[in-house]
């Protein structure tokens, strides 16, 4: 075990604790950004003017009529921007655009004494638009060759040769839709300017540092003039990684120009029509198997729908390509990626960050091909698992593949899968109008930011004279329990009771230059930084304690607030030790830092070892499908998931369950629809509210949900032997989709292969059932070698080299 992963006796990590704010949540006492409005004097409210076109030029913008509306104070336009008019980091997202790029794009913002005044002011603003042709669907953009950003390729082996020699070749396509984050708290910022011109923005953001960067460049001030604080978020899921910045900048600009606090909170419909979502993808593929069903080759082109600007589309695409293999070894691989530019919201990070979309491709391939190969899908998946010593297509050794096997075998056993499969066959034989099915799918998910530089974190640990401890770290709390874990880490590292430690809100003036709380890495990175800071303080306290106890400094132990040493009967209370250390002028606070070692990644070649480790899991899901309507229920779900040695089991259980249901929502229920017609509302998001975009509710909850965390699975490279948990379990929901596929197939003859778009709504499933009943041979796949070669990128297509990586390279070359 490394020092990082080693757990001391009596560790506070590993205990199942409720969320640190649970008592505040349930009493309504927990404060979110918009709850501060009533506590802030003289506030102004911001309201957008949203364009009613998917693509148009703004020919004139008359703001004067708005100023005649009682209560309207100011209208913010491009002319007001003292710095850079850009909401992002690629300089392709003007904050006040003169070209409307999607239906609902905000062209200016109105500030009012009340939200009502701002709303009426926004209605009064007169805008002339010159409509332009718009690309709304992904397929339209592909046909028009409308792409943006790099076009990376992951390749290994002799793909064409493998297809020529393969026993079984299938070719197909998959359309998979995106997903609205629908964090319950919409985007919200509250900006104030103090007497010295310092800007203070309270913001619901997963990435306070980048919010700070963008606010600073919009205002044209250095970063030290801007402080961003995030108390907590009412959910983030990736939607607040890059998207909050522009809204924060508008609020800050308003505060700067008026000298008054400005609140900008989006209504649900504004949030849904303006902010980015999970990328939908289109995939073309051909696959080769041998006679045993072993994967021989995969050739695929994945095109993501990036929306109107680049945002995080390049790293999302990179992660998608790095996860097409999921749990399976494929000797010969060629995976192309492209990002379409469409006139829609700029799609962005969403839990899994492209990984789910990439993995869905191979799971779809296996689900469709298993019946044609005549191999049970459980067996087909299991046969293709990585074995020790094998590498991913991008060259990373797959460490601990035996843990995937352990998860798989445990879920087959705890889920009693073999017995239930037999029961289901018997049940189906006696039910004409309903079918049940059980599917098992695996997850292998790489942990770390692909871009190496982001894998760093900082923390600030203050020990006060009375022994109480205040922890600040660079991560943000969005409900995932990061703060709970950090309290446990600090208490463990210092050896004090949990009640000794308090956690302060995330602020850029406490810990600078932080990475986004994203990529499931919040606990890994910040936990290691918190631990480092605690150990620095503890190392300074040891000599003081050693003197009192009459032992050598490195013999000193602190456990549950009691300072002791082997060989000494004397003990010392933590608070006494701290008190004495203060009088000896020992520095009682420390800044901790951590960077993940051993990572390297070349995004131009798409090769390297970008991940510290892989998280594994397996899920077995049973569904029941109604043959009259295509509606379905999730009857039972069994999950075994690998979180290493859990830092906080109740928190991790909540992450696994919540991610599973969110993934099931993406795959089965949540149905983003844009107006694709040629009428005046072309490009308008048709599902722009909670009444038209349905998230899972209680009715989608599995009737039986049985989650086990894989035991005895410490991760040597991570803090206290734990593993990241935020994203990987989302992809356990593939088992729902595959169970629905198998249930639909069972309405047809044996060997029926079912083609499903994503999401599998009841309607989609009903048509699939109809096809299985009446057209079981029409499975939408081309069979036989060498298959249909997916569209290849233009030879001059740009490589994937994100701006951030270019900057890093330029810096290192200068150095």
């Amino acid at each position, binding site marked *: 075990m490394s020092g990082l992963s080693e757990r001391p006796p009596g560790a506070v990590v590993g205990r199942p604790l409720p969320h640190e704010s649970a008592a505040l949540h349930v009493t309504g006492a927990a404060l979110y950004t918009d709850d501060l409005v009533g506590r802030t004097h003289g506030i102004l409210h911001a309201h957008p003017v949203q364009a009613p076109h998917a693509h148009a030029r703004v020919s004139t913008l008359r703001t004067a009529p708005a100023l005649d509306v009682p209560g309207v104070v100011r209208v913010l336009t491009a002319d007001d921007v003292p710095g850079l008019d850009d909401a992002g980091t690629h300089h392709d997202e003007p904050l006040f655009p003169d070209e409307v790029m999607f239906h609902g794009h905000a062209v200016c913002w109105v500030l009012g004494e009340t939200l009502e005044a701002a709303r009426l002011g926004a209605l009064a603003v007169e805008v002339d638009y010159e409509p332009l042709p718009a690309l709304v669907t992904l397929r339209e953009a592909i046909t028009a060759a409308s792409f943006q950003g790099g076009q990376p390729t992951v390749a290994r082996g002799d793909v064409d040769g493998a297809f020529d020699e393969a026993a079984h070749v299938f070719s197909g396509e998959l359309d998979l839709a995106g997903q609205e984050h629908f964090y319950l708290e919409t985007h919200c910022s509250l900006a104030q300017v103090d007497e010295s011109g310092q800007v203070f923005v309270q913001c619901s953001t997963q990435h306070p540092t980048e919010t700070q960067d963008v606010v600073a460049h919009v205002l044209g001030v250095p970063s030290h003039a801007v402080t961003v604080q995030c108390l907590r978020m009412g959910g*983030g899921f990736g939607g607040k990684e890059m998207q909050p910045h522009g809204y924060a900048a508008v609020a800050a600009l308003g505060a700067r120009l008026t000298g008054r606090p400005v609140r900008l909170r989006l209504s649900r419909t504004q949030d849904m029509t303006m902010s980015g979502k999970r990328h939908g993808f289109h995939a073309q593929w051909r696959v080769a198997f041998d006679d045993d069903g072993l994967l021989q080759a995969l050739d695929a082109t994945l095109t993501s729908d990036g929306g109107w600007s680049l945002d995080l589309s390049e790293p999302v695409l990179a992660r998608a390509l790095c996860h097409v293999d999921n749990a399976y070894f494929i000797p010969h691989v060629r995976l192309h990626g492209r990002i379409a530019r469409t006139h829609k919201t700029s799609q962005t990070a969403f839990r899994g960050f492209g990984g789910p979309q990439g993995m869905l491709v191979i799971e779809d391939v296996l689900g469709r091909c298993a019946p044609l190969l005549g191999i049970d899908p459980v067996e087909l998946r299991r046969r293709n698992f990585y074995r020790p010593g094998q590498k991913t297509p991008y060259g990373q050794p797959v460490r601990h593949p035996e843990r995937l096997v352990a998860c798989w075998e445990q879920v087959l056993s705890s889920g009693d899968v073999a017995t239930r499969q037999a029961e289901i066959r018997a049940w189906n034989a006696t039910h004409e109008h309903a079918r049940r099915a059980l599917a098992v799918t695996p997850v292998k998910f790489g942990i770390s930011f692909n871009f190496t530089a982001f894998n760093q974190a900082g923390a600030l640990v203050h020990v006060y004279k009375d022994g109480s401890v205040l922890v600040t770290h660079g991560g943000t709390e969005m409900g995932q329990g990061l703060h709970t874990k950090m309290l446990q880490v600090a208490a463990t590292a210092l050896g004090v009771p949990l009640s000794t430690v308090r956690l302060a809100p995330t602020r850029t003036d406490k810990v600078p230059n932080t990475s986004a709380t994203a990529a499931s890495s919040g606990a890994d990175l910040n936990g290691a930084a918190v631990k480092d800071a605690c150990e620095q303080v503890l190392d300074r306290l040891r000599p003081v304690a050693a003197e009192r106890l009459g032992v050598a400094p490195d013999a000193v132990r602190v456990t549950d607030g009691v300072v002791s040493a082997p060989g000494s009967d004397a003990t010392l209370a933590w608070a006494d030790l701290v008190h004495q250390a203060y009088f000896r002028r020992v520095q009682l606070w420390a800044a901790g830092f951590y960077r993940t070692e051993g990572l390297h990644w070349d995004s131009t070649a798409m090769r390297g070892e970008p991940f510290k480790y892989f998280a594994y899991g397996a899920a077995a899901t049973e569904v029941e499908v109604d043959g009259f309507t295509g509606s379905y229920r999730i009857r039972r779900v069994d999950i075994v998931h690998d979180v290493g040695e859990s830092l906080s089991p109740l928190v991790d259980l909540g992450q696994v369950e919540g991610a599973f249901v969110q993934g099931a929502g993406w795959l089965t229920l949540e149905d983003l629809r844009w107006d694709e017609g040629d009428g005046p509302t072309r490009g308008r998001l048709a599902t722009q509210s909670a009444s038209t975009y349905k998230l899972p509710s209680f009715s989608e909850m599995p009737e039986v949900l049985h989650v086990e965390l894989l035991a005895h699975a410490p991760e040597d490279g991570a803090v206290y032997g734990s593993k990241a948990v935020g994203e990987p379990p989302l992809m356990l929901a593939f088992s729902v989709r595959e169970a629905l596929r198998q249930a639909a197939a069972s309405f047809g003859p044996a060997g029926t292969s079912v083609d499903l778009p994503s999401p599998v709504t009841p309607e989609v499933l009903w048509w699939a059932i109809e096809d299985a009943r009446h057209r079981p041979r029409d499975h939408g796949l081309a069979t036989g070698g060498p298959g249909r070669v997916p569209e290849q990128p233009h030879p001059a297509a740009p490589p994937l080299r994100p701006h951030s990586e270019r900057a890093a390279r330029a810096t290192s070359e200068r150095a």
Partner: protein
Amino acid sequence: MAAGRHEVTVNGTARSLAGTDPATSALDFLRAQGLTGAKEGCAEGECGACAVLVLRPDGVGRGGAGADGGTDGSDGTAGADLGRSRWTGVNACLVPAAALDGQEVLTAEGLGTPDALHPVQHELAVRGGSQCGYCTPGFVCAMAAEYYRGDRHPHAVPDREHGPNGFDLHALSGNLCRCTGYRPIRDAAFALGAPEAGDPLASRATHPPPAAPPSRLEGASGAFERATDLSRLLTLLREHPDAVLVAGATDWGVEVNLRGARARLAVGIDRVHELRALHVGHDAVEIGASLTLSEVGRALAGRVPLLDQLLPQFASPLIRNGATLGGNLATASPVGDAAPALLALEADVVLACAGGERTVPLSGYFTGYRRTVRRPDEVIRAVRIPLPLSGVTAFHKVAKRRFDDISSVAAGIALDVRDGVVAKARIGLGGVAATPVRALATEAALEGRPWTAEVVRAAAQVMGREGTPIDDHRASAAYRSAMLGTALLRLHAEADPSLAPAVAP
């Protein structure tokens, strides 16, 4: 009008409504008071993050009014003051603050504090029922309403939607959580015991709710007036034909919040006592138009089985605690769920104006997309369902989500099957035309024919061609038609086999 002091009692403390605009929601009012526990998640009553409790009359009593009608012919009346009250969950984002004048409201802050958690709060907290916590105060309120429900009793055999403590999971179907996946929330709900003796909120419910006297609040956007008797209501309607009638505001609140609608005059009709009566007579059941759907369900107590199938599928309890049959029919949405069921029941609509009343059959009530025969000076006083009822009924709702979704298509079906022959068929459809419609051709294909698979198959094909469904974000036209085509097949497959003809024809 009576002026009054315009106060709401929130968590036991009187809070003035002075200066509150009539278009201000209860949610915005509470938050402006510093009570920021209730949150806005969607502003249209879909997510429940804004849920609060309002003390309402408990109009349904064991052996009380409404339970004695029907069999002996004497009229029963629901909504009468039984001297008790009920903590009722509502979406504060939809209810106008002005409608709460004089009422008692509880928020999550009033149930407990971090140092002294309410049992509902405790169970949610310790079981991991909150992650981001934003939806949590709303869950707490919806769960507390069910916790205090007087007729919640332990079930002998819990099923998948009822806990061993009698907790009905449907109570939470109007609350969305994006983090937990719901399992820990369910476990918290099912772990709740009964309120302890002396629980102040349980004790409070043994007394009547506060009176709801007439009240009027004026503001920049217009006025809100609560009418409490029909004559005042009709006078207001005669004088202000553009007045908006608001019962639970489950539709009007959405218009205000999402589409910026403002009323010069909004008239609260939820306490008009003539609109809150439920009579069960020999030849008809008459349901007051302002009774909430929750009240209707409790007061009917199973007397109209088709409504018992409809009501649990109608939105969520938070909505049903405000929504009314009158509102659903006045809105006249082609996807409103009440109309298909009421068409199958051959209901009439009783319209009242200052000059008197008229009764129109529901089948002739809708005239176009969101248009009806109701004149601006008229109010729907009641819905009348003729008796006797047909014996075979079903309400088939097709939607993406099982709880709290809007229908792609809905079918209310009422068949009178005698000696294996369909003597009468009445089928109402929603989501297949600009208005709710009767499936007349299908009815004709069934009536007078034996209740056999062959006849049902033929009628199902006819039903698949009813209406003129459209493609939209909820469903394709083809799927809507297909679902019409399978509704009768499903009913036949699920119906009691004893309905089949004794001798094969």
